[in-house]
């Protein structure tokens, strides 16, 4: 496989991703220092405050960083709704703010712990001498205690910097563009060049910042002002350089959201190309979860994304019945507009349903053709699904309707699911009907005779803010009913580990659409 086009594409995205990464990690680190250092100084002679601080910071550290980042989103969403109601001005609960706050908390433990340890480790005779020669408490802190504790404090700051820069890759799922976009996109599309590129870029940035901090530390210890200034200037320049492309570029007019899987990346790229052709500038918020992305659209933090009717039907409308396709779509369009002011701008023409699938040979041997057949064998079989599936209402419905009880239930990346079922590690997977790999791996989709699984027609949703935006709606109009299931499968397959990039797959899909419209 030739990696050159993937590397070229990765490089093309570097300014945006690195800029986002630097902005969020540097802000979080500065904020963390601004909070942690004064708190540590204040706790110098207050042991009670000290134990509370260290305890709280340690608890924060035990929360997995991904969860910490994710928790800030609903919290801020609530606060934003509150300020909107009370002051008439809300703020974006997605992306930058929750990432910065979570990473700030995350940076606090090493800084607090090292600063406190450093200050406590000072020989009491020296602290006393500082007072004895006539220093005030503040002079003693600045002239004696801080310089003596500096190497330990700086070690804490360096640890915090590395942690924050590393953890910032996880801010991608809550909508903050970062070097994590390479990693998340790469994992979804089996683009290992992207994954490696993201890891290497984050590691290099972390190492560079660490070395510049080390230079400052040495300069402070050996009293070389030039070293301190050089280190500080280096970090400032690095930050500016990373932020400059983002600052000089005009702000994109439209934000396209994506959920974390290949099809969504391809469709976002397609919409981006379509709007770009219409002279509208766009940016993407990649890898958002189903609930996050809907809230983000409602709040106007993203302008457009593709969702699936079944998902809205069960997750948002909380329905557990199934209606005929046309009736469901009409009801949903009306509900979305009435409840949230969201515009359902039309279906794309294909369905991406959840479907339980097995290797066809194995299904034949066991005589399984439907979910009802599957229920008889489930106790001896294992099932694999994506991160969302087993928590979704559809799964509860399917399980109850057919009485499915599997021997084992595993959660994994969608990309690994197909390999797992093909390799026999899982017997059944909860796959997607628009996924090209169902055919590629010779899987058979099991029938749903009770019609428990609702239709999952792909639909374009537009935020309330853009409801009257004719330029946007006009640019999206040609996509209505334009994508066949076979074209979508082919595009997904191309974008996913097939060697072609997401952008290329979207371009191919765009050509297909054009061919089709010409043929019409």
């Amino acid at each position, binding site marked *: 496989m030739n990696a050159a086009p993937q590397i070229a594409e990765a490089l093309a995205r570097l300014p945006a991703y690195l800029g986002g990464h630097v902005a969020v990690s540097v802000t979080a680190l500065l904020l963390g220092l601004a909070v942690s250092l004064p708190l540590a100084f204040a706790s110098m002679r207050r042991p009670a405050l000290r134990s509370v601080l260290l305890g709280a910071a340690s608890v924060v550290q035990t929360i997995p960083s991904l969860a910490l980042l994710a928790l800030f989103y609903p919290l801020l969403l609530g606060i934003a709704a509150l300020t909107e109601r009370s002051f008439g001005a809300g703020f974006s609960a997605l992306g930058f703010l929750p990432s910065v706050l979570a990473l700030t908390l995350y940076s606090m433990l090493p800084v607090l712990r090292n600063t406190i340890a450093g200050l406590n480790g000072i*020989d009491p*005779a020296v602290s006393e001498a*500082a*007072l004895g020669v006539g220093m005030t408490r503040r002079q003693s802190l600045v002239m004696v205690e801080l310089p003596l504790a500096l190497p330990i404090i700086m070690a804490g700051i360096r640890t915090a910097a590395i942690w924050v820069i590393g953890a910032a890759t996880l801010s991608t799922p809550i909508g903050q563009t970062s070097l994590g976009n390479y990693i998340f996109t790469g994992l979804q599309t089996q683009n290992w060049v992207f994954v490696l590129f993201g890891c290497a870029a984050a590691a290099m940035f972390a190492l560079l910042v660490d070395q510049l901090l080390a230079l400052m530390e040495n300069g402070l210890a050996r009293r070389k002002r030039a070293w301190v200034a050089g280190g500080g200037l280096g970090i400032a320049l690095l930050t500016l350089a990373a932020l400059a492309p983002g600052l000089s570029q005009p702000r994109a007019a439209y934000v396209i959201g994506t959920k974390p899987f290949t099809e969504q990346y391809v469709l976002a790229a397609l919409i981006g190309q379509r709007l770009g052709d219409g002279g509208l500038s766009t940016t993407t918020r990649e890898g958002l979860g189903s609930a996050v992305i809907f809230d983000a659209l409602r709040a106007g933090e993203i302008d457009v994304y593709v969702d699936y009717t079944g998902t809205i039907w069960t997750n948002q409308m909380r329905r557990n019945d199934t209606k005929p396709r046309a009736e469901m779509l009409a009801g949903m369009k009306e509900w979305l507009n009435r409840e949230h002011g969201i515009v359902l701008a039309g279906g794309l023409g294909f369905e991406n349903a959840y479907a339980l699938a097995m290797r066809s040979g194995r299904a034949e041997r066991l005589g399984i053709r439907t979910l009802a057949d599957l229920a008889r064998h489930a106790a001896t079989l294992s099932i694999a699904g994506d991160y969302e599936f087993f928590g979704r209402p559809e799964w509860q419905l399917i399980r109850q309707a057919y009485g499915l009880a599997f021997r084992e239930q595993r959660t994994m990346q969608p990309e690994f699911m197909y390999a797992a079922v093909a390799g026999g590690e899982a017997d059944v997977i909860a796959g997607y009907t628009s996924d090209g790999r169902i055919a590629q791996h010779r899987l058979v989709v099991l029938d749903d005779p009770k019609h428990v699984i609702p239709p999952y027609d792909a639909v374009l949703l537009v935020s309330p803010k853009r409801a009257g935006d004719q330029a946007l709606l006009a640019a999206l109009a040609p996509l209505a009913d334009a994508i066949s299931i076979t074209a979508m499968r082919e595009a997904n397959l191309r974008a996913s580990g097939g060697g072609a990039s997401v952008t290329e797959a979207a371009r191919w899909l765009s050509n297909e659409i054009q061919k089709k419209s010409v043929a019409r």
Partner: protein
Amino acid sequence: MSPAPAAISFDDVSKRYGENAAPVLDRVSLDVREREFLAVVGPSGSGKTTLLRLINRLIEPSTGLVRVNGEDVQGADAASLRRRIGYVFQGVGLFPHMTVAENIAITPRLLGWDQARMAARVDELLALVRLDREKHRLRFPAQLSGGEGQRVGLARALAAKPAIMLMDEPFGALDPLTRGALGEDYRALHGELGLTTVMITHDMLEALLLADRIAVIRDGRIVAQGTPQQLMNGAQDGYVRELMAAPRRQAERLRALDTK
């Protein structure tokens, strides 16, 4: 000749840590006259260091009054009070990240002296405590011997030309030769500079050799005070007599050795 006015006076001073704790100092009254060299002798835990720290407000009294030059120290700004009083610490307490010159010039720096005046003062003090200017000026405390460190500590305490010097076991950790030499050097400085000195020691012999007057403290109370001669000849307290016995025996033994 009328007695010199009191440079430092304790008036019924007690210090206790906590409401019901036993007092560390118990109703102490004591005057130190100007230009006097007072040694405070007592066992560890007797309250000697507490007594010393009350003078420059490193510790606040629970009851009673401490006056410096007639002024209640409670009414003075602690930092500026300390800048007027030299303090030599038991553990020396030199700032490890500062050179010898910077350590010595610290109080002048806090007082806002200009660079030239500070540099001249550092040279003057290095000569005064008999350290080599070129050799020691730019060294860090970790590069000094014990005796050199003590001399720097002494120079630091003297830097801002204080009239009062407080010394907490200043020569405690030194070998006997260095200790004797440094003690005599300081006694000479005390006279030359017209200082008032309060020195804490647990070594009665040192007190006898250096001080004008000695106060013996035990369990937070002053059990005896007087000139070395008065204590040598007329001590009533059993503990004080015990304290005096050791140097006396040493002196007799030495004399006996000398005549043989």
